[in-house]
Structure formats: structure tokens, C-alpha cells
């Protein structure tokens, strides 16, 4: 997926608008929508970060990024659902000892999110930056420096 300069500017405007919207939601106390939008904010920043010469790897976009985003959104949804369901009472079940509202935070948000991004980053590291990408970058810099030197002479 190719990101043109115009696309990148659009994404930057969207991320900035998200900061503003999340901030206002925070003032108004709408934390759930704020948390969902927070995931979108991070997702967009990561898309900008993984773009390689303006190209976003579809593989990387699917896994780990989209899986991570879904994992976190699901975690917040379940956390809120069970917090409401068992408000003021001892829950009727637990998940490995955790409150059903906190378990999604532990297993999906914390461990799930960390493992998804960490393993995905290791498995698809070349989609982020391969050895060739790095060598090409260094060659490009060298060639620019040589041109600059010739220009100076």
C-alpha cells in the first residue's frame, strides 16, 4: 500500500484531530470512546512509522498491526462489559483468578498486545526494514555526501 505525501499529510491531520477529540472526550468523561480512539491514534502512528519509502507492507498491516488493534479494542469492550455486569458484587466466575473485567486487560491488553507486536516485529522485521533497505539507505547517504563534496569543490 503506497502512501503519497498527500496521504501522509492526511494521516497527520487525522492523528492531530484525534488528540483533540480524545482530549475533549476526557473533559466530558467519555472514557470508552476515548480509549477506542486512542487505539486508532496509535495504529495510525505505527502505519506512518512502518512505511518504507512510502510503502506500507500489507503483511505487517494485517499482522501484527490489525490483530493488535482488534485485541486491544476487544479488551476494552470486555473490561467495560464485565465491570458493568458485576458492579458492586463478587463476580460469579474468574479467569485464572482475575476479575472478569480485569482479565481482558491482563491477557489481551498487556500480554496479548505485547506478544502480538513483539513477535510480529521479529517475524516480519524485513517488512519494517530489511538488511537491503539499510544498506541502500547508507549508499544513498554516501552518494549524497559525495555529490555535496563535488559541489563544494
Amino acid at each position, binding site marked *: 500500500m503506497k502512501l503519497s505525501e498527500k496521504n501522509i499529510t492526511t494521516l497527520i491531520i487525522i492523528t492531530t484531530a484525534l*488528540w483533540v477529540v*480524545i*482530549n475533549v472526550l*476526557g473533559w466530558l468523561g467519555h472514557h*470508552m470512546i476515548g480509549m477506542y480512539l486512542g487505539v486508532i491514534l496509535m495504529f495510525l502512528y505505527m502505519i506512518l512509522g512502518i512505511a518504507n*519509502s512510502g510503502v506500507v507492507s500489507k503483511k505487517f498491516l494485517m499482522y501484527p498491526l490489525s490483530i493488535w488493534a482488534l485485541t486491544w479494542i476487544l479488551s476494552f469492550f470486555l473490561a467495560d462489559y464485565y465491570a458493568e455486569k458485576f458492579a458492586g458484587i463478587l463476580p460469579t466466575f474468574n479467569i485464572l483468578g482475575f476479575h472478569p473485567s*480485569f482479565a481482558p486487560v491482563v491477557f489481551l491488553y*498487556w500480554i496479548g498486545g505485547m506478544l502480538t507486536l513483539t513477535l510480529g516485529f521479529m517475524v516480519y522485521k524485513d517488512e519494517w*526494514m530489511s538488511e537491503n533497505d539499510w544498506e541502500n*539507505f547508507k549508499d544513498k547517504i554516501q552518494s549524497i555526501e559525495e555529490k555535496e563534496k563535488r559541489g563544494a569543490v
Partner: protein
Amino acid sequence: MDNMTKTLIIIFSFAMILISFAIGWWSKKKANTVQAYFGSTGMFGPFAVGLSSTAAVASAFALVGVPGIMYSAGNAMAFWMLSSAAFAMAYLILGKKVRAMAEIGEVASLGDISDLRFNNNRVIKAVMSIILLLGCIAYLAAQIKAGAELFSHLIGWSPLLSGFVIFGVLTLYMVISGEVGGLLTQAFQGLVMVIAGMVIVVSFYKITGGFGEVLKVTAEAGTVTANGITKNFSPDIMNAWGVLPGVAAMTYMIIPIVGTVGQPQVITRMYALKDPKDMPKLNFYAALSHTVVGLLTLVVSCGAFYLVGTGKIGPLVSGDRAIYAFADYAGITSQLFVYAAVLAAAMSSASLFLSISAGIIARDLPNALGFKLSEKAQMSYAKIAMFLIGIASIFFSITQGEMVAILGTFGWGTLMSATFPVFVLGLLWKKANEKGVMAGTITALALNIASFAGFKWPGALPWYFNVITISMTITVVVSLLTKEQILNKKVEAVIEL
């Protein structure tokens, strides 16, 4: 606590301080260039850099303050320490670009990256440096206060004497070895924190029988009173939001995660990595070690709930006692590692912020003001600055307790407001221009000062959330409304990487 236990904890903790000093002393021969002394640029592998990043991120607040707030108000604060995915996010967003900047020019500090990206713009560098300095000094003072108070309580020395002994040694090894010794000692201190995490998790399961028992106790304990102190339990304290408003969970989710991308202790470590292709491995070590430290904070708060709820110990005078109360109940092995881990957390963050502060004062600010210093002079001035800041911070943090508490609210958010316009927007977006970033950073500085002076923001969000949003918005709007700048070809290659 009996005298024998106290003596063992003191010996164990001082052994850690001495080993840190030995590492610093050993590293001094490697800190022989500006890039090594200020940034350890391109010098270390993923294991050392990963552990050092975790240790620098996990401050005394993470180990003492976070479980304390969880003990007082439930799980909303857990989001702060269950943020281990943040490292991957930071490296994916900025990792290769920050590291690549070290290939196109001399990078020894964050100010150097700002220079390369924004055509040596002095205003951007100066304003960013001042905000960073505010955040670093605030963090440094808070670490010294936490470490000194802990040991004065244990040994019976005055906080000032404890502060001088512990952080005087730290200042000394940082002066002689700069960031080289800083990074390696932080890696060692990170390892101490990870081992402490493992020890305390085993103790937690032995004492409580697991999280299920804690859940049951907190739901059924009701109100517990002893020694004139009352702790109210409720079934909701163990759900995801605890007893705080939901917006607290939102803030404690977004700020540590997104904020990690903009923390100097993470960005500086990106260019300390020798081989940029090792960044996935660096993330692996950082995320894994952070996960163990996160688990430590979770189990000590749950452990404290269990002990108080079952009447095994009385309610705590303050939430900040949770980690010590649990370790003291768990026995000598836990005590040895927990006290050393808190000290390690304070020292690792303090050393990083001491080094960054000295670099700003001796190098980045003079440079931004137009003074050109030789490499030798920069290093000499930095050593003097580090020594003076170290000593002054010890005095300040111990004698101005109230001011340190106020400054403690700076830190994380303040640092984000300085780095986001310059690095996140600057390295992801070619159109981020000098005028936009100048406007954004100047706004951030003004709003940080206004907030510190008591300006009240609407809503219940921490003030720094508003400051970050406004400074980012101003940077983007001004960049869009003003003329696009022609980028240096090498910078363009970095942004496209």
C-alpha cells in the same frame, strides 16, 4: 524489622551501589569521545540497551507510586505499568528514523537530531532543551527523594546523608563514565529489578495462593480498621477501572503508551544501539523485562490487598507503603530484592536524567545560544555540570520536599510535550517545518510553566494531556499554513526509510 534483617538489606543494597560504581569505573575508558560520553551512540547490543531502557523507564514512581495508587484506588492505575507493548510501538514509529539520523551527522544528544532535522534552528533546540531540562530535573529530584528517604528510614541516617552517600556515588560514576557507564549500570540495575520481580511473584503465590484468593478477599473484606487507620474494600476495586472515574483509566492507558515514544530514555537508546537491524531484538528484551517489572507492581498491590483484607497486617498508613509492607511480610529474600529493586529503579532513572541535564547545560544550550565549544571543552564542562547538578539536586530534593512533590507532576508529560513536535512530527512528516515546530515547542514551554504556576484546565484530565494536544495541534496547523521548507536530501532519505 529486626536489626539482622536491616543489616542484610543494607549490605545487599550497598553491594548493588558498589557494583554500579565498579561498572562506571570500568566504562570510563570507553567514554572518550563526545558521541560516546553524551550518547553512547552506536555502541551497544540489544540486550544491554533493552535492559537499560526498561530500567530508565521504570522509575521509583513505577515501583512505589503505582502499586500505592492501585492499593488506594484499584486497578485503573495498573494500565500505567501494563504498558509493555509501548516499546514495540516506539521502535516501530521512530526506531529506524532516529537511528538513521546518527548515520547522517554527529548525534550525541537529542539536540543534535533537532539540529539535523531543522537546519540548526536555534530556537527549536533551545526551547526543546529547556522543556527537557525542566522534565529531567523534576524526575531527578523525585528519584533522589525516594531513594534517600527509603534508606534514611532503614538505616536511621538523615535523608541528606543517605542522599549524599547513594546519589553522590551515582554522580561520581556518571561524571567519570558519562552515558557509557550510565547505560551499562542501568542495564545491571534493570537486571536487579527483573530478578526482584521473579522473586516477589513466587512469594505472592506462596502467601496468597493466587489472584483468585485476592479477588475473593477484596470483595468480602468490607471495612478493615486497625491502629486508627481504616481501609475500605469493595468488589469493584479489582475490576478494570477500580474506584476512580473511567477517564483515569483512559489517561493511564494513552499517556504511558504513546508517551513512551517520546521519552528521552527511549529515544536516546535508539541511537545507542550498534546495529539498527537488531531493533526487534532490542524490543524483545525491553518488552520482556518491562513485563516482569509490570507483574511485580501488580502482585505487590494485590499482595497488600490480601494481607490487609485478611487481617494479617493492619491497613497501610499510605498506599506508597504497599511494596514494602508486602516484602516485609514475605520475608528476607523478598526484602533483599525489593529494597534493592526500588533503589535500582531510582538510580537508573536518576543517572539517565542527570546525564541528559548535564548534556543540555554543557552542550545543547550553549550551542543553541551560539557558543561553539571544542569536543574537549564540552566534555569538561559536562563533567562539571553533572557534578554540580548532582550535588544541587541532592540538596534541593531533600530540603524542598513540597516543591519536589509539585515538580513530580512534571516529568513524563512535560518530556512528551517537548519531544512530540520535534521527533514524532519531525521524523514522520516532511511538511513539519521550522515555523510550525517553533510555534509548537514555544507553546508547550509556556503552557508547562502556566500549569506549574497553577493554571486550572477544564475537566479531570492531567494538565499535561491538554498541553500535548495543544502543542501538537499548533505545530501541525502552523506547518500547514506556512511555506513548505526544502529538506536536506539526507534528512529526506531518513524520513523515507
